[in-house]
């Protein structure tokens, strides 16, 4: 008898728990749907407005009254092609060169114990506390002396992005730290040089972090705005997409270029987003690893 009531009691309680779990899950579902909407809505708006043909300025509704590809045609007619190509070239070069530099730096700092190591890392930490914005003025003057500004801004930008990229070694160093050192030592005992250890043993294991570095390096130039504008100022053929499209939303141009900005945004975001979604796994790995390592 006692047993039975206890059994019933337990069943009741578990039903109660299930019910409360169902309620809380429902609330969570509702919240998640709302969150997804808030996060996606602006992008849905951009896509919808890029097809709007009746008015080119900002309006108080989202769905176009006249659908069409006018805005995309307009992109082809203006300098947008040049900007797009510029950005693409920059992103590609930076992705390759920056990855090489970051890997050299992080691998060395993770694996070698040389005399200046601690001092070097501390020095770079302190350097990182200076606002980079400050160095823009002098970098511009130096690049100008080298003839790498205005119309030639593309190589100039690549040079500057790549040259200082060694400072961002933290995430990949954290990754290298997790590869056991005994692997290196075993190979060294077998007579491999340090260079061979890197190319034959570590690099194949480091694929996730290599892809993460390439991905972030490729994505950064698409959004750089301040420095690119300072370097290319006034010469449309040296702009990247961010600099070029920024002016479309200025007070005197927004009336006629707003929807074109939306179309341009779609064209810029599409390839980057697709690439990002394909390699999402590696990005997530890098970001979480980086935060835990600090």
């Amino acid at each position: 008898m006692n047993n039975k009531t206890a059994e019933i009691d337990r069943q009741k309680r578990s039903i109660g728990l299930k019910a409360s779990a169902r309620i809380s899950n429902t609330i969570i579902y509702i919240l998640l749907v709302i969150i997804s909407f808030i996060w996606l809505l602006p992008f849905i708006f951009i896509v919808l407005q890029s097809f709007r043909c009746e008015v080119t300025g900002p309006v108080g509704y989202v769905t176009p009254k006249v659908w069409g590809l006018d805005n995309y045609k307009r992109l082809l007619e203006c300098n947008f092609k040049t900007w797009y190509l510029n950005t693409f070239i920059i992103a590609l070069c930076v992705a390759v060169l920056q990855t090489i530099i970051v890997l050299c730096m992080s691998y060395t700092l993770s694996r070698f114990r040389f005399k200046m190591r601690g001092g070097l890392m501390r020095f770079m930490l302190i350097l990182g506390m200076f606002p980079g914005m400050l160095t823009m003025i002098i970098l511009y003057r130096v690049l100008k002396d080298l003839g790498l500004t205005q119309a030639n801004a593309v190589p100039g930008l690549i040079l500057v992005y790549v040259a200082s990229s060694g400072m961002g070694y933290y995430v990949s160093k954290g990754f290298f730290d997790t590869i056991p050192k005994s692997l290196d030592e075993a190979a060294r005992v077998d007579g491999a040089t340090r260079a061979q250890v890197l190319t034959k043993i570590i690099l194949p294991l480091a694929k996730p972090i290599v892809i993460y570095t390439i991905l972030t390096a490729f994505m950064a130039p698409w959004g750089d705005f301040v420095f690119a504008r300072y370097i290319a100022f006034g010469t449309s053929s040296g702009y990247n997409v961010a600099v070029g499209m920024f002016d479309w939303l200025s007070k005197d141009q927004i009336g006629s270029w707003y929807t074109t900005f939306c179309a341009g945004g779609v064209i810029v975001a599409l390839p980057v987003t697709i690439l990002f979604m394909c390699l999402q796994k590696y990005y997530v790995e890098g970001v979480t690893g980086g935060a835990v390592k600090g």
Partner: protein
Amino acid sequence: MKRYSDLEYLRLGKWERFVYKLQSFFVAIPKKLWQLILSIGRFFKKIGLGIAKEFTDIWLTFKDGDWKTKTSYLVMGFGNIARGQVLRGILFLLFEIVFIGYMVLPQGGAYWLSKLGSLGDQGPHKEMVQKYGQWVETSVPGDNSFRILLYGVLTIFFIIAFIYTWRLNVKQNKIAEGILKSGKPLRSGKDDLHSLVDDQFHKTLLALPLTGILIFTVLPIVFMVLVAFTNYDAEHDGLNNLFTWVGMDNFNTMFNWTAGGKSYSAAFGEILTWTLIWAFFATFTNYFLGMLVAMMINKKGINLKKLWRTVLVMTIAIPQFISLLYVSKMFAKNGLINLSLINLGWIQTGQELPFWEDPTWARITVILINIWIGIPYLMLIATGILMNIPADLYESARIDGANPVQQFTKITLPYMLFITGPYLLTSFTGNMNNFNVIYLLTGGGPTNASISTGGAAVGHTDLLITWLFKITMEGGNKYYMASVVGILVFLVVAVISLVVYGLLPSIKNEEDFQ
């Protein structure tokens, strides 16, 4: 303040514990600062002693060395060549020749150094020049302050490199003598080359990255720090009108309190306060809300986990200038939100919500939109860490009768805070310098009319970093003031980092959670 022993501490109530911890945090700050000063002192003492040691060593090497060593003091690499290490010797010698050549050339190191004290004596001026047999007055370009400062700094770098190499050359002679005395052979040039891919491989790997950092980061920073002590601006551009050293004048301008509300100090105080408020809210709203979203997605029994996560992650991929600019226009006076509210009849034309026009509205909107930008990152980070919390911790908590709230405050939150302590610190300083969000959303506006510095306008949402940018771009391009602001930003970030870093639990006792 009374210090409790461990046992006394455990007897305290929850609130008393919190107060006690808070007190000990603030009590520890002066001690931390004092330790910081001490460690800086120790650092200089170490350097002083090191230099003294180097000098004695240089002298002893000279005294005890043979004639090959002694010659090397003048002709670098001579000892190496004489002892058969030709490759090294030639490299040393080559470096010496290049250095001396650079220093004595007409427009070389010595020239730039000699001008560095004045940053140029003469701007563009008229001179009598002989043309076609006649003396004609012509304009000739004068000195260029910008180049003098730049090449002056470069030359100093070069001299330091030379002294280092020279010291290396002396040291090598001593080592070589020692090896020969013990009867062993010296390393050949071939060995040297091989060691570059083997036990000296780090030098090969670091050569390129460090050169890049030296030229494109260190040199510009040194240059810009020096600019804070000059009067370099649009008027004194260094070419048409030379600029020169002004000592601490710019710092005095910055900290001049006498001018009331119309001074740099007032602007700096105002902007620094907002920068700290902004960094605090931007960091912690993102942190807790991101954690909340991550916990909702990861909760047992929630389906389509991958979909929710993908939706959020996707927004990371879209370049910020598109999303931020678009959202900024959405909230504008004639933007989507206000126009659709008018269309709906909820507000009248002329009563638009002042998202960017009113200081308080603008500040709150900026923080809210930053949440929109930041949560996806935090969701990713939190997901990674939450999955690493051992499940049996929760299980035993549940058996002990802990409700979800208790589980969160007793397990999840401490664990997260412990692991992400350093991340919180870097994201705080990162937010202080979050140029993109502020500049693309508000451009620093609305303008703060009560403050004017005579230079660039000061806005209500301006961070130090956007203010710095504005000073550089507007109102007579006062580069020297921008440089002063930059140095102050550095100091603020450095002090916050050092003080907080020492107080982080994950640094103090690394083994606690393992």
